[in-house]
């Protein structure tokens, strides 16, 4: 059926246009917009009534007028052309190639909104991904199919960290096809360039699909960018059997765009002006990670978001934390001390860690070591506050050990080079080395037999006996 073209725009407000006199317009339908100068844009129907449609225009509404601009309803939802050829290519925020390469010849097309994975079809994520970063591998283990965001702040090296993870991430003992899907929303040219260069340097670029919406690109485009990335990721993972790591940066910009549209529609705002449906909307993106029974690939997500003023209770990190399976929190204090990566392990968490570690996966002592390091570091951090008031002299011998433990933990365990790739064994042994400075009866979270087996002083002794 030939679709009608309209030039009956009644209103243009923010990223939205309201078209009158329309009929047969489907909710969520994709719209082609041709402005008075012939420029082509795409949009989506946000509300459909008899004779009226509200359309959000992804490229923004600048230059749209009410008389000459033409609107065509395509009768179809937003679909992305997919093919393995996308690997190594760079697209803009709405999926158009920007690397001067040819258009993608689609092998299939898919609705960018995806469909929810049936929970009974999901395979529980439990394959340990070694990132080579101690404070992630030991303390907040990442597993395949997980969504683990990085909560950062302006001025912290979250990009370096994300790039390092993308470079180093491996699953032990396996050589499988992997890919990185990178989506940038509202980032600066330098930031985006940093990632591209990193990937180029390590050869990852061949295995990467990038969707780039720069800070100067239309805000509204950011709504669709992560959806394109995730649609591509699902295709590569579940149709092509690849293990896909998706990096989404910066989700804060995505949420700002969401707020902008909501405000343009005069919706009743929820907290801090963000729409009440932001949780659902974020979930529609984040939940597109995982594994499916009987299929080879996986989608692992690392969204990055900058917390406004470092406030973890701000709606964006807050709602994200409720959906994702943990979070890696970067701390300004650590960064100021010159510690890289400035991962603050105390508020960080990986919910899927338990299934991914232990005997046969990492090492039998992993869970105990991790819990013990946490607990000891937490005590040490508390003591710092106390020392600030009463001075170190007032502390007991025992407390002083914990205080020093916290310092050494940050200096040797958290700290590592941008290119330093530690194996899980190295990281765990490092943990034992630190723990050996504490009184043994305080080590309640590790099993006694593990102390005998892994702690430096015993390892030596047992070897002696054998001689």
């Amino acid at each position, binding site marked *: 059926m030939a679709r009608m073209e309209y030039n009956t725009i009644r209103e243009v407000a923010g990223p939205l246009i309201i078209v009158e006199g329309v009929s047969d317009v489907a909710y969520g339908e994709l719209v082609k917009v041709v402005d008075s100068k012939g420029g082509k844009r795409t949009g989506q129907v946000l509300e459909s009534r008899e004779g009226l449609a509200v359309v959000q225009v992804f490229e923004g509404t600048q230059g749209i007028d009410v008389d000459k601009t033409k609107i065509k309803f395509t009768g179809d939802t937003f679909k992305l052309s997919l093919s393995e050829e996308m690997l190594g290519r760079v697209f803009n925020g709405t999926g158009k190639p920007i690397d001067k390469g040819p258009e993608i010849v689609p092998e299939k097309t898919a609705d960018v909104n995806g469909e929810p994975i049936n929970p009974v079809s999901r395979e529980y994520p439990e394959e340990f991904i070694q990132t080579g970063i101690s404070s992630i591998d030991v303390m907040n283990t990442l597993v395949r199919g997980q969504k683990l965001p990085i909560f950062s702040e302006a001025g912290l090296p979250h990009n370096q960290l994300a790039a390092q993870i993308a470079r180093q991430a491996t699953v032990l003992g396996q050589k499988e096809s992997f890919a990185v899907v990178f989506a940038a929303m509202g980032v600066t040219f330098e930031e985006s360039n940093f990632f591209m260069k990193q990937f180029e340097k390590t050869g990852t670029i061949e295995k990467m699909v990038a969707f780039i919406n720069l800070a100067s690109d239309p805000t509204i485009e950011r709504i669709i960018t992560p959806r394109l990335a995730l649609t591509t990721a699902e295709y590569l993972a579940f149709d092509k059997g690849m293990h896909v790591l998706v990096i989404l940066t910066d989700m804060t910009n995505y949420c700002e765009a969401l707020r902008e549209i909501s405000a343009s529609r005069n919706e009743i705002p929820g907290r801090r002006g963000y729409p009440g449906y932001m949780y659902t909307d974020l979930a529609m993106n984040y939940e597109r990670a995982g594994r499916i029974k009987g299929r080879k690939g996986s989608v692992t997500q690392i969204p990055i978001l900058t917390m406004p003023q470092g406030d973890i209770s701000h709606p964006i990190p807050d709602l994200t934390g409720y959906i994702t399976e943990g979070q890696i929190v970067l701390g300004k204090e650590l960064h100021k001390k010159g510690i890289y990566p400035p991962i603050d392990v105390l508020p960080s968490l990986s*919910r899927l860690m338990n299934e991914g570690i232990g005997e046969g996966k990492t090492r039998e002592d992993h869970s105990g070591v991790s819990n013990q390091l946490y607990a000891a570091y937490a005590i040490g951090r508390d003591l710092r506050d106390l020392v600030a008031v009463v001075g170190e002299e007032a502390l007991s011998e025992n407390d002083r050990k914990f205080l020093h433990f916290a310092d050494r933990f940050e200096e040797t365990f958290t700290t590592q080079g941008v290119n330093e790739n530690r194996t899980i064994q190295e990281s765990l042994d490092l943990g034992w080395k630190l723990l050996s400075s504490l009184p043994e009866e305080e080590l309640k979270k590790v099993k006694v037999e593990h102390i005998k087996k892994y702690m430096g002083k015993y390892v030596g002794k047992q070897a002696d006996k054998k001689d």
Partner: protein
Amino acid sequence: MVGVTNKKALSGERKGEITGKIIKISGPVVVASGMRGILMYELVRVSEEGLIGEVIQIKGDNAIIQVYEETTGIKPGSVVRSTGASLSVELGPGIIGGIYDGIQRPLLRIKDASGDFIARGINVRPLDDKKKWHFLPSINKGDKVEGGAIIGSIRETSVVEHRILVPPSVSGVVSSIVKEGDYTIDDVVAVVKNGETGVESEIRLSQKWSVRTSRPIREKRDPSIPLITGMRVIDTFFPIPKGGTAAIPGGFGTGKTVTQQSLAKWSDADIIVYIGCGERGNEMTDVLKTFPSLKDPRSGKPLMERTVIIANTSNMPVAAREASIYTGVTIAEYFRDMGYAVALMADSTSRWAEALREISGRLEELPGEEGYPAYLASRLSQFYERAGRVESLNGKEGSISIIGAVSPPGGDFSEPVTQNTLRVTKVFWALDKNLASRRHFPGINWLESYSLYLDQLEDWFSKNIAEDWNKLREQAMILLQKEENLQEIVQLVGPDALPESERLILEVSKMIREDFLQQNAFHEVDAFCSPEKQYKMLKIILTFYELAGRLLGNVPLEKIAAMKIKTDIARMKEHKNETFDKKYTEIITKMQSEFKSMEE
């Protein structure tokens, strides 16, 4: 209080189907015209695809409908058809072990129909209508039965006997009843003739019930038997009775879901209804993966054999999220009416409230606090009021305990959902971010939490566990409260400024915190702690306090703090429930002799 069945309410008075036309679509909310005669909360089919929707507002000819499926692609002008029924659940054998979406569609069979991703417009019946169940009648022809009476039973799983109930609206004389044998859920197993009206009602193995109406009961009773959860901080300090209500508020990462899942795994209810409301897909997978392999510590049978799961993950349609808790609680009521103790976990009620808010926003209603609709409080209390210990219509005693997780934004308990929940629930387990980041799990703050049922449960504990249970609990709580005050002083002047007696309190409170309150939900033994073991563990710690107190002044505290027995105490939680009696005597004896040797 007595509800009417949907059939009576809806199909009786109206002839023919109402068909209207869509005039507006906005997300999950659709407006249709030409719907005069439609009833509030009636179920409708939207568009040619037949998406399931529910009427939530009527304005003259227009009906405002919330649609339980994704509405993308739906157009104005499409048809809307009435169904004559309200949103109902199908109740009958086959429910146990099932995993359903928010409107009771079976996810397992949806997978067969639509693959790994959930497509929309799928219409699958909740219960398997092919499967034959072995029905054992328990009444005879000529018996008089009332609504709710038990007419026979089916062994649904190795732990659940599914009792077939006469629908609440039916009563009369049994004019026929089938023999013991195998029947499907659609087979008529009995006919009941009402003497007054002469109406004959066919009774099948399955029945329907409207989710927004609570099932009728004879009377409510005061709850006085604890729901044993195997979690020390809950059973000992903040117990919930069978038929009670509890709220677990906590920011993300504080352990709401782990706590909810522990309760679902280990509490001594007969039936568990677990509602995953707007939560993570992988969490539901986790439940599906672990429950069948975990054994109930009492019956030794797989936990899945007493569990029903309702899953509306956060990326599933939001309107179905609103319905999911009603679907869950109606199923719970059905099993309660059979005489079972049901525990219902809703994780998380905040997502349900947000669904309410989202739909309210689309309806352009005037918002209340933080954009939530003004009726949030009344909806919440209606839901929690469906809990309780009751005498059902057939005289059996059953109960529903509701444990609702709340996810306050930013972990701030002053927000409307937490506050309105606390107004109706009587147990409050406050999850504390500070405890969680110290890996103190379960992260239930012992000073902020409360249980208003303590007095009602006191009797049970002193009769069934130990005479001095309540005394021990109070003593331990007083120590913990003192510790809090002492810690403030320590923060200012350091621990050395305190007298030894107070430093001993710090030492013992630390033992209570670390060796008693902390519990590892993933440890093979520690995950479930029997109340007997809880009592003995606490007794050990308090005996230590008592013996140490006697030595103070003669022996420096450093020596007491360095005692060997402390290692035994720290590890006692890992000792098996069954043989803990022996361990208890062993530790106490060892402790006494170590203290004795120090005395000399």
